């Protein structure tokens, strides 16, 4: 599968919904360590609404499908990750504006816009124990892979590995944002829930094109 169509994106949103449902309790647990424990709930709500929206989407253009799915997410859940995830999809959608198909290079653009959008909205950067620690390495790897002509499948697989490596790396970072930041040095050893979700979302894409 070298290019994705609108139908594929509809399927991906549906897979994101399934993933968020099956991972709900796990994410609640992660977010309960130094957060308010709502992450599993908000992700399930966010992807449920996005998947329902995508399933009904009539047009063939992928850009606006993704962007409007992002808007839908924003309305579904008010917590930090709800807003950030919505931002990511809105920005990624804008990057794909006008496209009816998505190849590896487009996918690299997608995740670059996704990542930069979240970094901008969250005023966060690599090393601050957030979702950016999963997204940034993945976006960078994807860009490299795409420019060296890798297949969509291989590029996404590499991106997924980079994202999970990023999640691992959060286990030695002090939180700079959100509730976990109140814990300061004590937050160091915890795995960041937002980064985890970020990697899981990338994995859904990677698994779909595999």
């Amino acid at each position, binding site marked *: 599968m070298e290019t994705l169509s609108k139908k594929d994106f509809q399927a991906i949103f549906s897979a994101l919904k399934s993933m968020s449902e099956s991972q709900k309790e796990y994410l609640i647990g992660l977010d309960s360590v130094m957060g308010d424990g709502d992450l599993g709930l908000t992700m399930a709500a966010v992807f449920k609404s996005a998947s329902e929206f995508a399933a009904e989407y009539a047009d063939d253009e992928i850009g606006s499908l993704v962007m409007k799915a992002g808007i839908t997410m*924003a*309305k579904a859940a008010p917590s930090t990750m*709800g*807003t950030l995830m*919505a*931002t990511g999809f*809105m920005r990624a959608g804008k990057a794909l504006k006008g496209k009816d198909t998505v190849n590896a290079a487009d996918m690299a653009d997608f995740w670059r816009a996704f990542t930069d959008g979240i970094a901008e909205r969250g*005023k966060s950067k690599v090393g601050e124990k957030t979702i950016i620690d999963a997204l940034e390495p993945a976006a960078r790897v994807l860009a490299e892979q795409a420019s060296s002509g890798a297949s969509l499948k291989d590029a996404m697989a590499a991106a997924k590995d980079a994202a999970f490596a990023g999640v691992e790396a959060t286990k030695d970072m002090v939180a700079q944002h959100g509730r976990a930041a109140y814990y300061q040095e004590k937050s160091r050893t915890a795995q960041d829930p937002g980064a985890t979700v970020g990697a899981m979302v990338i994995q859904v894409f990677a698994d779909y094109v595999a």
Partner: protein
Amino acid sequence: MKKFLNKPETFVDDMIRGIMAAHPDKLTYVNDDLRCVVTAKVKKGKVGLATGGGSGHLPLFLGYVGDGILDGCSVGGVFQSPSAEQMLEVTKAIDSGAGVLYIYGNYGGDIMNFDMAAEMADMEDIRVEQVVAGEDVASSKKGEEHKRRGVAGIFFVYKVAGACAAAMKDLDEVKRVAMKACDNVRTMGVALSPCIVPEVGKPSFSIGEGEMEIGMGIHGEPGIERGPLKSADEVVKQMLDAILADLPYVKGDEVAVLVNGLGATPKEELYIMYRKVDEMLKEHGIKVFHVYVGEFATSMEMSGASITLLKLDDELKTYLSMPANTPFFEQVQL
């Protein structure tokens, strides 16, 4: 936890229902969502002013929606940001073509959501500008003003920007005036006791009997000094010295003063504090244009107070003096 409430989960919605029931001629809500509060009378052609933020700070934030100040407010859970979606709905309701200015405090969740709302409003062809208020001198050192928390001083920003909008100025002008107020306002607070978030049910921090914490934030963010409670005059001196040095406010300046109670501290004590503020300003040759004493930004039943100075020029004086009328704040022309 000793509070008049029904269920912690319904705390915010019950509160808003009470507010709507008490002031039906002044406030309403849009999108079938109690938390999207707007003025009952949107004025055609006027720049819309919106704010938003967590609950638990009345009269912040929704208490400043009314004639001569703000037009709309999105309301979050206790100490939680409202959603970008709610902000967007408020924006749509109060825009009448002249655009909308967001004025809100410097808190991560609020910023993220207002940014998002602005982006969504842009997609709906509503012009939105933003001003982030942050004036707590204890929350970040000089040179890093952009990191400072917004607390009671945001009242002054609302007041002058609201009056400017009421004078039918355009969005750029209202934003400029709001930013001027931001640049000229400084606050410092002191807390004596914590408060309880209803859904949590116990205090999120504690301050020992006989202790005070200078510079503590209104959600319990750490201050700059915890120590034995000193006399009112000493506490005020410590706070006001820091404020005066920061801008700095100097001899010949003219200011408005706000002595704000955080919730449980009685007005008697706020005026005892103001006595010393007045004495010190006189010593420094700083002239007082107008004084506000009362609860303008609270943390439910937290006990403590904050002092805010707004340095004035003729323009800010004019806008500060104009009348305003909300269910929580009434001012006749000064």
